Every structure is written in C-alpha cells, then in structure tokens.
C-alpha cells in the first residue's frame, strides 16, 4: 500500500473510532443506574449495547463495499474488502449477543420461558417480527461467508444469500427506533441513527446503482464475440466506446452483468484477460460457479453493465528490473493482460502451472507476447507434487527470483505457496503482488 493510502486508511480508522464512540454514547447518555441494578436488567443492558455496536458495524460494513469512488481511490478496493470481511463477523457476533441476551433478560424479568418470551415480543412490539426475520437473514449471510462453508458453495448461492443482508439491515431499523429506550424521547439520538441508515442507503443507491448504470449506458458496452479457449474456459470479447476513459489497466477486474435472461440479475467479478483498448475489453472465464457454463451461450450484441475497474494487481506497482509472473490455470489471464503493460525494459519470466496440457489457456497469445519482448515462459504441467512451488523449485527456472517483483494469480493454495516461497527467500511484502480468485467477490 502506498504512503498516501496508508495515511488515508489512518483517517478512516479515526472516523470509524469516532462513530463507535458516538454510538456508545447513545447508550451511556440514556442509561440509568436502575438498568444495572438486577441481574436481568444488566443482561438486557448488555444486549442493548451489543445491538447498537453490532448495527453500527453492519452499517460500516455496507458503506465499505458501497463503491464510493473517492474512498475506493484513496484506500483501495482490496483493502476495503478486507476490512468488510474483518468487521462482518464482529457485527454478527454482537447482534447475536443482542438477540440472545434480550430474550434472557426479558424472560427472566417476566419470569417466563425464553420461547414464550420470544413469541410475546414478536406479538406485542412494533416491527419485532421483521427484526427477527432480519436476524435470520443476517445470520445466514454470516454463516455462509465463513471460509469453510463458502468453499463448499457456488459463488451464485453465496452471493444471493449475501444480498439478503441489505434487506436484513432495512428490516431491523424500525424496531430499533420504535422500541429502543435510547431513541424513544431522544430526538437527537434518533436523528443520528436515521442519518447513518439514510446515508448508507443513499451511498449504495448512488454509487452501486446510479453511477454504474449511467457509465454502462454511456460507454454502450456490448458482447462482440464469445470464444471457447479450452475445456470449460471461455473468452468474452466486448465492444464499447471511449473505454480508455475508464482508466482500466491489465490485471484489474470489473463486476460484469450480462443483460440477458438468466444473467441480468447478478453480477460477476472477472479480470481483464487482455490490456483494454479504446473500444475493446476481454475477460476469460473458467466455470468455477454455475454461471460461467452458460456464458458460452451469450449472444453477440447483448448489453453489458459493469462496475469498476477494481484492483491494484497492475504493472506499475513493480519496482525491480526483473518481474516474475506466476499463474495457475485460468489465473494466467490477468497476468497475460498485465504483461502487455509492463515496461519494455523489464526482464520478465512467466511460470504457468496447470494440471493438464489443455488447461494451458491463451498459450499462443502468451508465446507471441513473450517473443515480442524476449520474455521466458516456463510451462509446468502436472500435479502439485511434481511441481512444488517452493523457493528452491522456482529458482530452478528463475535463478534471480530473490531480486524480482512477484505477481501470482490462481487458486488459493498456489497463491499461498508462492507467497511463502517469496517470503522465505527474503522478498519484502511490497514486492509480492497476489490475487486469489476468491478475492474478487463482494
């Protein structure tokens, strides 16, 4: 991360802190000693603090991925996604604490069973049923985002469930302001809370809907051709106008939405597989989810909506005279795009890992690009055991590995292995550039 971005990230941390402080103040300002006088009132009080902080973090999580352009520019999309992922679980923990403890606190106070208390609350309090449904949605999105659960799901399933967090956050709002003691009779507190929710909603509508729609229409991006590159690997070539004005670079990705039946309702993150030109962009896709299988049936002329460009996996972040590009399978595609934009004076080595020969996609293009600039391409076909991505093994092909910039893209195990290899031979972190497939999503 550049110095400027680090500085901006520090400011973002302060803003987050102030927000947490203001939110906690809502409670401290309105609480009474009697809220802490009996066991059950303490339980209820703790639950309310959890609710406030958990909801605040949920809103922050939304804002982090709302694609506010100056935030994306000043902190970096990748960093925002990392923060979103770090905050998400905390938000869920705190809200879960709220739901459980408020039930225990109320049931204890009313001296009835927790299940009956839940039923009573849903019946008697305004917007409690929507809030309870919201909690279930929120919990589902959290559980399916857990690393192990997510690895077992398709991107489409995960994304659809995740989408319900918007609904969850909206549904939970009314029960907060109608029954929360920190809001009833405290108009300023309510104003602050409304500002948070309306602000987040406006940011999403403007930056995630209005701006991308407008830009997609202006640039008039449409599918020109769909090409099968190998088993399960498809390239989509898109034509538009003034695409150079997007400022996209090879190695970056967009969120794409093909506006045709069965596709329009969800967007997918795919990297550019060739450096963009004024009129053309290309992505190359392997069927990792359910979606990419249908991509080959897309018709020429289909309109494409896009959000982006995103990502800092680009050529101009390299600092050494020697660059090593390591790609696994279809992970070669952003590297191939990035290679086009590497300064011609740089010495380039490409390591292309694949388990079968037919998985060496875009091989001809890669060879042509390598020939043109005198780069070497090392094809390593076979199992992981045959080609362990250790420092020692990499240095067999690239003796100058130690003194190079490393770019790696592919499945997470490959990225992790190369990362470890690079660190083990002393390459500093700012010279290791990686892009795991899973990193695009959100």
């Amino acid at each position, binding site marked *: 991360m550049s110095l400027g971005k680090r500085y901006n990230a520090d400011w973002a*941390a302060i803003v987050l802190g102030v927000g947490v402080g203001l939110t906690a103040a809502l409670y401290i*300002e309105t609480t009474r000693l009697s*809220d802490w*006088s009996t066991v059950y009132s303490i339980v*209820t009080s703790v639950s309310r603090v959890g609710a406030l902080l958990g909801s605040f973090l949920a809103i922050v999580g939304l804002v982090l991925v709302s694609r506010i352009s100056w935030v994306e520019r000043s902190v970096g999309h990748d960093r925002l996604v990392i923060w979103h992922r770090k905050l998400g679980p905390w938000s869920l923990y705190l809200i879960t604490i709220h739901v459980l403890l408020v039930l225990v606190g*109320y049931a204890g106070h009313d001296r009835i069973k927790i299940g009956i208390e839940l039923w009573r609350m849903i019946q*008697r309090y305004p917007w409690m049923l929507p809030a309870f449904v919201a909690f279930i949605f929120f919990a589902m999105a959290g559980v399916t985002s857990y690393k192990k659960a997510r690895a077992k799901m398709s991107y489409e399933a995960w994304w659809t469930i995740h989408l319900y967090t918007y609904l969850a956050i909206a549904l939970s709002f009314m029960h907060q302001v109608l029954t929360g*003691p920190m809001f009833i*009779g405290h108009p300023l507190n309510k104003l602050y809370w409304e500002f948070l929710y309306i602000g987040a909603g406006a940011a999403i509508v403007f930056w995630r809907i209005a701006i991308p729609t407008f830009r997609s229409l202006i640039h008039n991006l449409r599918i020109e051709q769909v090409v099968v590159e190998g088993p399960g690997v498809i390239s989509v070539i898109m034509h538009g106008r003034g695409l150079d004005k997007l400022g996209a670079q090879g190695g970056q990705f967009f969120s794409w939405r093909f506006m045709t039946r069965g596709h329009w309702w969800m967007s997918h993150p795919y990297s550019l597989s060739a450096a963009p030109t004024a009129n053309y962009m290309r992505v190359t896709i392997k069927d990792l989810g359910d979606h990419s299988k249908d991509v080959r049936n897309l018709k020429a002329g289909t309109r494409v909506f896009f959000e982006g460009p995103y990502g800092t996996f680009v050529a101009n972040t390299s600092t050494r005279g020697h660059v090593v590009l390591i790609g696994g399978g279809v992970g070669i595609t952003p590297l191939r795009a990035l290679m086009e934009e590497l300064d011609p004076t740089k010495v380039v080595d490409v390591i292309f890992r694949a388990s079968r020969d037919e998985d060496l996609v875009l091989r001809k293009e890669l060879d042509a690009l390598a020939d043109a600039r005198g780069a070497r391409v090392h094809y390593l076909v076979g199992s992981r055991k045959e080609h362990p991505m250790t420092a020692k093994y990499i240095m067999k092909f690239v003796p100058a590995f130690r003194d190079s910039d490393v770019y790696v893209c592919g499945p997470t195990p490959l990225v992790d292995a190369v990362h470890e290899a690079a660190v083990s031979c002393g390459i500093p972190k700012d010279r290791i550039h990686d892009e795991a497939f899973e990193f695009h999503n959100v």
Partner: protein
Amino acid sequence: MKRALLIAGGTVGGLGAVLSITPPQFGSSSTVAGGIQKTTPTPTAAPTPAAAKAAASGPSGTFMGDSINTQFGPVQIQITISGGKITHVAVPVYPNSSGRDQQINSQAVPWLIQEAMKAQSSNIQGVGGASYTSQGFYDSLVSALAKAGMK
C-alpha cells in the same frame, strides 16, 4: 497496532465529545417522561366546525377502565372523551413499588399514553421492556372504551 490505537482514540474522542455536551443522568428516571409529556396534546381551545359537529354526535365524559392485575401489580387507566374523541388519558394505578418498576414505567407509561392519544382507539403498540404494563394498559383501555360505548 497503530491503527487499532487510532480507532480507540477516535472512540474516546467521540464518546467524550457527546458526554461533555450532554452529561448522562444515571440517577434520574424521568427524562423520557418529561420529554413525552410536552408532546401530549391538550384539547384544542377552539374546535373547528367539523369537531364541533362530532362533539354533538359522539359520547363525552370521563371513564374509568377496569383495574387489570398483572404479575407486578394492578394497572388502571382513566380516559376523558369529548365528542367521541379521546382528549386525555391518565394512569392513576400502575406497578410502582420497586425501583425497577419505577424505572420501567416512568418511560413506558407516558409512551403508552401518547400511543393511545395518537391511535384514538385501543389499537396501540406495547413498549419494549414493559410487556406486563403494556398488556394491563391495553386491557384497561379496552374496558374504558367499552364503557364509553366506543368499543
């Protein structure tokens, strides 16, 4: 980590700013009630022609609701109706013996009064944290409205 310190610093700053402007009142129990009482409307001094017409047709008078026993004590309300319109709601009896009851009901009772004034019927929402009082208030309100012939 430096950034964690920044977050903590921001938190302390935000918290401190709010609390120094509006200091918390841990001991008091009636700030909410005060805030709501201000908004409780009083009968309008000069009724509009429409209201005057309604006044001629609807029931008028003061009606005491049934005393409803809850786990924490009885709740009883009294409504004043003028021309079919609820103009005043009082709660002479509600659980008030423990500090906990006082604390809960000092917030809940004004809120329930406001709800009843707003709804002009028994169609009201309960208050979080005061489910028994809410239920008692509701039942007493229903009985008072029934006595007034307003169901």
